[in-house]
Structures are given as C-alpha cells and as structure tokens.
C-alpha cells in the first residue's frame, strides 16, 4: 500500500484490523482505538481519500490502497489547514479523539472547498460530517469553529500567534503520546480475568500455568459481575487472551442484591455481612468517608445541617396543613459512566536496580507514585510515574487502581515490562461511575417567601461502594435557613462508583434546582429572582443579574407552549468548593536558551501545561518559543492530583512565584537581562544556562476553611465558586425528543488563567450535563446484574450534533483574596446543567421530569401521550 505518501509493506495476520496494523506494526500511534466497534471515530483513516473506520476493517483490505493517517496529513507547506484550525480554535481538550476528528474534518474541508469555494458551512453540515465522532471532553464548540474557519480558508498559512493550548500541535499531528501508545521492547500483555457472578465465594482459581497475580480480597468473595479476580500476562495479546480463557474459577454462588430499590428491604441478600468486609468496601468519593451506621445493605445516615430538628418539624407541619409553599418531591438519577476516551491503562517495568517505572493514564501522578511506593515498600523516588498525555479522566483515574497493581505485579513475575489496557466493555463496566441517587427533597418557604426549611434524604446507589455525598452538599446552597441533610448508601452487587466531576453535585442539583423552580412557580415569582433573593452571595448575584438580562430570559414566553414543537427556557444555579494544595511547587531552569518549567502535574485535557506556560510567558515577557513546559513525571516538582478544582489554583500561583524568583535570580546574575517592566531578554538566556528557581503556592489571604490541609484533599479555600446556566430547548411533543438549542453558562471562579481553555472546559461541562440529562444511562441486567451498556453505541454520550450553541460568561471579581485571583471551574461548570435542561423541559411542556435521562418514552408518558 501507499502509506502517507510512501510505499509501505506489511504482511499482517488475517485477524489483524487496519487500526492494529497501523498502530502496532507500523508504529503510527496517532490513530487511536477508543471503542473498537465503529462508534467513536477515533480510528478514522483516509483510504483512497475516503474517511474509514479502521477498527472494523481487516488489514488485508488495505492491500494496494492509498492510506493517510493523521501523521500524514501535513503537506510540504506544513500542517493541513484543519490541523492549524483545530489548534487555533482549541478544538480539543485531552486530545484523544483529535486525530480522528482531524482526519475526517480534513476530508470534509477539502471536499467542501472544492464544491463550494472558501465558504463557511452551516453548523448542521459540520455536525453531519462529524456525526461519527465522539469527544467525551465535549470540545465541540471549538471543533465547529475550527472546521468552519478552515473551510473559509482562514488557516491556509501558519498563524503568527501561538495556539491557546501549549501542546496543541502535538495533539493535532498525532505526535502526543498517551499510555496506550507506549509499548516498550519485549513488552508483555496483560488481561484481567473478571467475575461472571454477581455474588459468590471463590473456592478455587486455577490459572492454568499462566504468569498471573491474584486480585481477590481476603474474604475471597466477588461482589459484582466484572470484578477483577486475577490478571494473567503473556508475550503477545493473543496469548494473553488465550491464557485468560484457560483460567478456571470455582464459584460458590451466593444470593445477590441487584435492585437498588429493594436492596435495603428486610430479607435482601447482604453485600457486606461482616464489620471487616464493610470497612474494606471501596469508596466512590474523594477524601475520607463520612461516618455511617450499617443496617444490612443500608449505610447511614451521615447527617449534616443546622437546626435539623426545626427543619424537619417545619416540613412535617407544612405537609400536615397542606401548605402550598412546601415542595416535597422525589428525584432520581442513574449511574453515569465517565467514559474517558483513553481507557485505563498502565505499562509497568522494574529496572535492574529494583526501581518501578509506571506509564499510566492517571489524574494523580504523585498520588500513584506515593501509593505505589507504599505498596511495594520503596522510597518514593524509586517509583517513576509518567503520564505525558492523559486521554480524559473526569474523576475515574485517581489513586492506585487495579491496572497499575496488576501490571506491576505481573511485570515482576514475568521479568518483563507488562502492559494492561482496559477494553471499552471493561471501561464501561468497571472503571467507576457517578452513583445514581433517589433524592427526597423538602423545601419550605415562609409567608414572606424566604427559605424556611430544607430537608434532603439521598439514597445513593454506588453499587458495592460507599461514600455517597449528595444531600450533604445542601450545606453549600441558599443561606442558613434550618436544614437537615442525610446521605445513605444502598449497597448492591453491582460495580463500584468513583468520584465523577463534582461528586454528588449533579445528583444534588438535579433535585434541588428543579425543586427551587417548583417553588418559584408556587410563589408566582421569577425563578431567577427567587434564587437571587435566597442566595445572597454577591458574586453569584452578579451572575443572576447577568442571566436575567439575557434576551432569551427577559423575552421568554411564560407558561407551557402549545403545538407539536415547543420551546422552553430553564435556569439552574450551582455552587462548588475549591481546593488548593499549599505543597505545590513549580521549578524553572534555563536550558538551551529557553525557560523550562517542570512539574509532576498531569494534564488530563484541562490545560495544566498551558496554565504554566502562559503564566511564565506573561510574567517574564518571553515569546512562545522561549518557554517550554514538561509535566506528568513524578520525579518533577510536587503537584496535586487533578480533582477538587485545585490544579489550576495550585500550579498557577506556584508558576508565577517561580517566574518571579527566576527573574530575581537572573537580575542577580545579569542585571542587564531584565527590562524595566520585568521582562527577560530572550537573547540573554543563552548565557544564563542552568539558572534555576522554584516557586511555591502561597497561602490565600484569610487562610483556608480548615486550619490545615486535609489528607488527600488539600485545603478548601474561602468562598464558593458559582454557576448559573440558562438553557433553551425545543421539545418535540409528538416523538418525545428534546433538543437543546442554546445554552449560556455564567461562571464565577475568579480570573481565568487562559480564557480560551477555560471556556472550552465550561463548554465541555455543558455537553456532559446534556448527556446526563438526556442520553446517558448505564443499564444492568435485572437477572444477572451484568452491565449491558458495554459499548459506546449502547452507552450514549453526546455527539457534536447534540451540542447547543454555548456562550460562556466569566464574572471575575470577588476572588482577590486568592493568590493568583482564580480557582478551578471543572466541577461547577457541569453540575447544574441537567437541572437547567429539566427546568427548560418543564417550561416548554408543563411536565416536570423527575428522572434522568429524559428519554423519549419518559417524556411522552409524562406529557400524557395516549
């Protein structure tokens, strides 16, 4: 075949797909395999110029064809215009989907320009062309902009400006290397053997002579279908799969609790019968679990609030007298799966000194190094964790997970590097999920319309994991009226949850923010005005005022519409905490005439590289090519994991501190190299080789909410971030479909370190929230407990055509007490979105959705289709 313009020879086995040939045999790892089933588009190649899903194409079919991969898109004059456009418009976050999008978009743009000249295609045309591609980060707004601009001929030459994202070029060319692309010489492949039973004691496991590691806990019990029992390794993937098939497991079946609605009833099979087993239950949250009593499969309540007795009494009395100012409602959500496009993966190797080397797709480089050091009894500096690029995380890639443990153990046993990569079915079953919840809400207003009481009981469905924290988040919203907030875990024999972008937040806001809307209706008050009144916080009031002034809100028609297609507008507010990690350090050194920053921080698509790059460039007045940033190695200076909205708020100030320290160091050595404005003379850097400085994350003014940083959490800062989402939808009342048309996202989280990247993240938050509201639903078999949605076609994340037009507004004031002036936005930008959709659907139809996803059948039933 002709590959990227040159003749190429290969003799693949008949069982090889084109994607495997290109990646594994020809080493062109830009092409990604994220689903292996034709759904996601990450593997798209041009075959004779036509975009083709290479994961379902036998490699033999490439014989005699002309094949172009992402690596071959660039021409003699540099990158393809589409690649430049994706970089310039930041049509990416983690970048794992980017090669597929870029290859498809290149074909579309070339065709469009040939047929229509340099004109801008419509959003619908772009959506059609890219309908076969999924981006879990939700970078669709940037992708729309990039494709339109490339069609219009705006990127035919190199841009003089650096792209907003530091590593954009690596991502659009396929050069960015992810853990799944790492395959050292002599690397063995590992496969996890997983339980086929929902609940069983494992009497014996026969590994059939394979190199293996046992992964069962002390009580030799499996508690869900898909639980890893054992991992085997062999020199090739096919041999490893065969070895896994030979493993024989002797199960002694136990009755299983599969239905979260019935698991806490008397007589239900108990998931954790002993205290030890209970204590060993995994957590689906960050930080230490809240205390809670166990009764069978019910754990809790962990109670919070203030004047809880008063709140309960007021709600009860109001119910008795039938008070219209009481909203008492039950809301439901199901498990939502993170679905990062790069699966969980680890490549482990022990070197001749007994050091452990781990390449892993993680959102906690240092966390993995520390936990691995502890587990294998090594000093921390002898564990070397690398995560150069990470294809999304969303909370599911923290800590020392099974892929790391298994790969490292197997590497030791095999005496060779071992690679373990989840397939999509494993990823959709056992990589964690946002637990479902049944939320009982009580919201009471007094005669003046002020909040008189808030009660919330949340029954959290995290499978066999504990740690649900939904109702507890009631501490963050709407002033200090009396409230009782209780969280329960309902345990079942289903896979464990994991923290997911604002743990508990999406469930909580789905209930509360629809409840507040119902209250507004009862009080006959504008829903924004009510929130503004109840909230009281100055920063967030600015957001309410902004939202109230939006034409879509100010000019909306009140009351449910008529006719088949009905439009509605909904609003929802959200608050979140932010953390910082005062131990964060960024180191700078002058190397080869450039300032080089190094930090252990991972970049999971949220832009930590770019934050450091921007801060250093701006602070030192250097051009783009004089600042380089390395991230994602545990040996570099300490940085926290990417969760709890703390990465940016930690590394940004540390980078600034480091830049200032470096300037002082330069001034000391070569006073002439620093200009009056504090900029460094780029030419002088050559003679300053080796000059170094480190910077720390200093304390915020006023300190933190807690006197010391919490273990594994960092320090919660003062002040809550806030979001107000305004969503416009169109409901087809005949066929039950909800189409989000436009969304405005107002965010208060201080100054944005990098405006474009911050917007991108907020846009992605909207997309994920829409997925939660309308499509995403993990389904489990009611009889066996097995997850049924094991591919991306059955587990439905939003595509580009499902994305509304999104406008992001930042209210930056009010964060002057924070060093650097800005905090994280990852969580607050997504957790309220689903409630805004729910409120919009209600506005359109008069029907109140109480359960996500708002599927066509639920909607039709709700609005009374006969």
């Amino acid at each position, binding site marked *: 075949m002709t590959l990227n313009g040159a003749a190429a020879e290969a003799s693949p086995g008949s069982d090889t797909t084109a994607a495997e040939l290109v990646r594994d045999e020809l080493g062109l790892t830009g092409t990604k395999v994220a689903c292996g089933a034709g759904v996601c588009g990450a593997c798209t190649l041009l075959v004779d110029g036509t975009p083709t899903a290479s994961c379902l194409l036998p490699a033999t079919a490439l014989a005699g064809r002309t094949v172009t991969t992402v690596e071959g898109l660039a021409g003699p004059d540099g990158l393809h215009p589409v690649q430049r456009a994706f970089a310039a418009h930041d049509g990416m976050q983690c970048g794992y989907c980017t090669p597929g999008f870029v290859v498809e978009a290149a074909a579309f743009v070339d065709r469009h320009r040939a047929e229509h000249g340099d004109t801008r295609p419509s959003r619908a045309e772009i959506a059609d062309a890219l309908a076969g591609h999924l981006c879990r980060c939700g970078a669709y707004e940037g992708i729309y902009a990039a494709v339109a601009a490339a069609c219009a001929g705006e990127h035919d030459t190199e841009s003089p400006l650096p792209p907003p994202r530091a590593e954009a070029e690596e991502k659009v060319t396929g050069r960015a290397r992810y853990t799944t692309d790492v395959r050292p010489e002599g690397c063995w492949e590992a496969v996890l053997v997983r339980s086929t039973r929902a609940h069983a004691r494992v009497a014996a496991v026969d590994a059939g002579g394979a190199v293996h590691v046992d992964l069962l806990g002390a009580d030799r019990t499996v508690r869900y279908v898909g639980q890893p029992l054992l991992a085997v390794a062999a020199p090739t993937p096919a041999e490893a799969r065969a070895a896994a098939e030979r493993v024989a497991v002797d199960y002694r079946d136990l009755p299983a609790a599969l239905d979260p609605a019935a698991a806490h009833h008397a007589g239900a099979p108990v998931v954790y019968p002993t205290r030890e087993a209970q204590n060993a239950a995994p957590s689906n949250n960050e930080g230490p679990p809240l205390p809670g009593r166990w009764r069978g499969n019910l754990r809790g309540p962990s109670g919070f609030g203030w004047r809880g007795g008063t709140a309960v009494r007021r709600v009860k009395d109001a119910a008795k007298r039938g008070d219209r100012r009481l909203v008492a409602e039950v809301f439901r959500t199901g498990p939502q799966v993170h679905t990062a496009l790069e699966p969980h993966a680890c490549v482990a190797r022990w070197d001749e000194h007994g050091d452990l080397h781990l390449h892993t797709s993680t959102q906690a480089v240092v966390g993995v190094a520390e936990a691995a050091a502890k587990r294998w009894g090594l000093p921390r500096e002898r564990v070397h964790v690398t995560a150069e690029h990470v294809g999304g995380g969303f909370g599911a890639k923290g800590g020392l997970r099974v892929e790391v443990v298994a790969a490292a153990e197997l590497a030791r046993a095999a005496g060779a590097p071992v690679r373990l990569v989840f397939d999509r079915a494993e990823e959709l079953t056992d990589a964690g999920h946002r637990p479902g919840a049944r939320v009982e809400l009580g919201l009471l207003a007094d005669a003046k319309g002020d909040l008189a009481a808030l009660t919330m009981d949340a029954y959290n469905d995290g499978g066999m994991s504990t740690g649900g924290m939904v109702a507890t988040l009631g501490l963050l919203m709407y002033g200090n009226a009396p409230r009782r907030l209780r969280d329960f875990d309902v345990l079942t024999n289903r896979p464990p949850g994991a923290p997911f972008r604002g743990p508990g937040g999406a469930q909580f806001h789905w209930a509360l923010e629809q409840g507040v809307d119902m209250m507004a209706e009862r009080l006959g008050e504008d829903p924004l005005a009510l929130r503004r009144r109840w909230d009281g916080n100055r920063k967030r009031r600015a957001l309410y005022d902004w939202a109230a002034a939006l034409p879509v809100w100010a000019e909306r028609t009140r009351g449910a519409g008529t*006719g088949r297609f009905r439009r509605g507008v909904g609003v929802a507010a959200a608050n979140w905490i932010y953390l910082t990690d005062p131990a964060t350090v960024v180191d700078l050194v002058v190397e080869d005439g450039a300032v080089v920053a190094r930090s252990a921080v991972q970049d999971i698509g949220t832009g930590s590289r770019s934050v450091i790059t921007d801060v250093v460039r701006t602070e030192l007045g250097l051009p783009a090519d004089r600042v380089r940033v390395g991230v994602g190695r545990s040996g570099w200076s300490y940085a926290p994991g990417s969760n709890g909205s703390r990465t940016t708020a930690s590394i940004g100030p540390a980078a600034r501190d480091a830049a200032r320290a470096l300037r002082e160091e330069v001034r000391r050595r070569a006073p002439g190299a620093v200009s009056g404005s504090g900029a460094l003379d780029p030419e002088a850097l050559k003679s300053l080789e080796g000059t170094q400085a480190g910077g720390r994350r200093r304390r915020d003014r006023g300190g933190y909410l807690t006197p010391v940083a919490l273990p594994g959490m960092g320090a919660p800062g003062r002040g809550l971030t806030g979001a107000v989402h305004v969503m416009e939808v169109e409901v087809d009342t005949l066929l039950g479909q909800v189409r989000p048309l436009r969304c405005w996202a107002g965010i208060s989280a201080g100054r944005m370190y990098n405006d474009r990247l911050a917007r991108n993240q907020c846009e992605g938050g909207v997309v994920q929230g829409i997925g939660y509201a309308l499509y995403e639903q993990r389904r489990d078999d009611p009889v066996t407990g097995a997850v049924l949605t094991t591919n991306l076609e059955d587990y439905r994340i939003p595509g580009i055509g499902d994305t509304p037009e999104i406008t992001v507004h930042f209210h930056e004031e009010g964060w002057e007490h924070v060093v650097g002036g800005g905090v994280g936005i990852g969580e607050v930008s997504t957790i309220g979105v689903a409630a805004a959709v729910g409120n919009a659907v209600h506005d359109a139809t008069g029907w109140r959705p109480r359960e996500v996803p708002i599927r066509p059948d639920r909607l039709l039933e709700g609005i009374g289709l006969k």
Partner: protein
Amino acid sequence: MNPFDYRRAEDAAGAAAMVADNPAAAFLGGGTNLVDHMKLGVAAPEVLVDITHLPMDEVEALPEGGVRIGANVRNSDLAAHPLIRRRYPVLSQALLSGASGQLRNLATTAGNLLQRTRCVYFQDTSTPCNKREPGTGCSALEGYQRYHAILGASPDCVAVHPSDMAVALTALDAQVVVQDAATERRVPIARLHRLPGEAPEHDTVLNHGDLITAVELPDMPMAVHARYRKVRDRASFAFALVSVAAAMSLGADGSVSDVRIALGGVAHKPWRALRAEEALRDGPATEERFAAAARAELAEARPLPGNTFKVALARSAITATLRQVHAEARGGDGHGGPGGHGEEQR
C-alpha cells in the same frame, strides 16, 4: 478475533460455491458488522470470501423504468447517487439516518440488508440467546427490552432487525437478486427476512452460500414523495426506537389512491404495514384516517413489559410521516398540514 483464511472469488457463482461448500465460510462485504461480530466472538468463520472487488458496484437505470443497485455499492455512494436522490429520496434518507460517514463509506448494500440484530444479549457471548446458540433460551424475555419487538415476535426471540435501509426498500417493493452456485433468483424484499418463530437463528430465507448480487427497485412514481422518519434516543447516530418509511399518491379528488408504509425497530424483519395501507387506500386523506390506519396496524402489537411505550410511539410516528408525505404528494412543502407548526424532519 480468531485467525481465518482470506480468499477472493473470481465471480459471483464462484463466490457462492466457495461459501456453500464450507459451513464455516462467510462472505465479507464492508465488514462493519461481520468484523465486529468476529471481535465479540459472536461469529467465528474460518474462511472469509471477500466479494468487494466483484463487479457488483453500479447503480443503473433499468429499461422497464426501475433501478438496479449492485450488492457492493457502498451505503454512502448509494445515498448520494443522483438516480436515488431524485427518484427514491426515501432510500437516501434512510441510509443517511443510519450509522456514520466513516461506516457508510465501508458498508455495502448486501451487507446492510444482512446485518444482524443489535440485541445486547445476542452480542454478548456470555449470555443465553436462541439466535446465537439455538436452544439456549432468550435472555431478553426477562431482561432489558427497550429495543425489542412489539410485532411478530415469538417466545423464542423478540429481537428486531436494525437496518434503516431495509425499511425504505420494503416500502419501495424492492426485489433482491440472489445467486447460488448454479442459478440466479429474485426474492421480494418483504419475503427476504423472516419472523423468528421457532428458528430465530435464521434471519432470512437465504441458504448458506446464497450471494446477494443486486437489489432492484421497481418504477414507482409516488416514491418521489416518499419519506423516512426515525425516532431515536439521541440526535447523533443511534439505532431506531421506531422508524417509518412511507409513500403516498393521491387521486384527482385528493383521496389516497395508493400508499406504502414500512416500519423499522418494531419486528424481527422490516415490517410492511399492510393493514395500515389497506385502511387508507381509496379513501380521503384525513388526519383521522391517518390515525386510524396507524391504530389498525398496531392493533396486533404485543409489547413486552419493557417497551410498551413503543406502541404509542409507532402510532405517532406513522401519523406524522403520513401527514408529511401527504403534504408532499399534494405538492405542499411539508410545512403546512394539520399540525400547523413546521413538520420538517429533525
């Protein structure tokens, strides 16, 4: 995926013979369904006979007025073909509503017709399934049923046929041209796929080794106004919950002189809605009669506990599509009609 022998046939009859002679052989079209099944372990052919280079890749007008579509024509090329877009737009619409660009570029006409059900249990080799392993039982009966049949199912299998294209072809009265090692024959599309009965392992009436070489569309003037409508859970690609292909012609007095209706997502085969057609033909084209026709078709529906909503959804979809094709047939723009508000496909 298990290794297999990869072969290329010289001609259609030779290909048919190669497969017919070996129970473990299969034709390879675009591979988008078969390779997926091989990866999942649902299919494990030992020999794949690649037929994509055989000269069956033309779309041509037939002398009697119809159109002949070669079995190897790619879904994307078929959807874009001027003859199809002009004379059978419903087929283009159906194709474009399915899968995604980079799959349609691979998928062939014959492969699309013969793609197998997306029933999750069929695709999961660890669960019982009569279609995959006859006699093991049907997991869907007690399991997840949202995407399963409401018409024509049997206690042995409640799966649905997933093809959008086939629904349009059914409304168009297509003929499927089949070649075996010795002869060529034509099978009307409505008789190609089977109901499950007691043998759900057979999707179609074809024998092992029968090669589809072409699909022929009859001349059908009213097809110019035919429309395809697909209801799904997500705007981006997803298989149909329910879909409808319909065509209508009107007499001089505005009454329905002829009509074709086919449904997808409701049965083991693309479902020709003969009862609804019957109820409509030779009578006025009114909203009430559209609804009555939809009711007549679904009177026999036997939904499962997990998909009762599909009955009403199918009724709504039929009515809406009839309204739309009626407006088209009247020479309207499809935006008027009883609903008032825009009726365009979304």
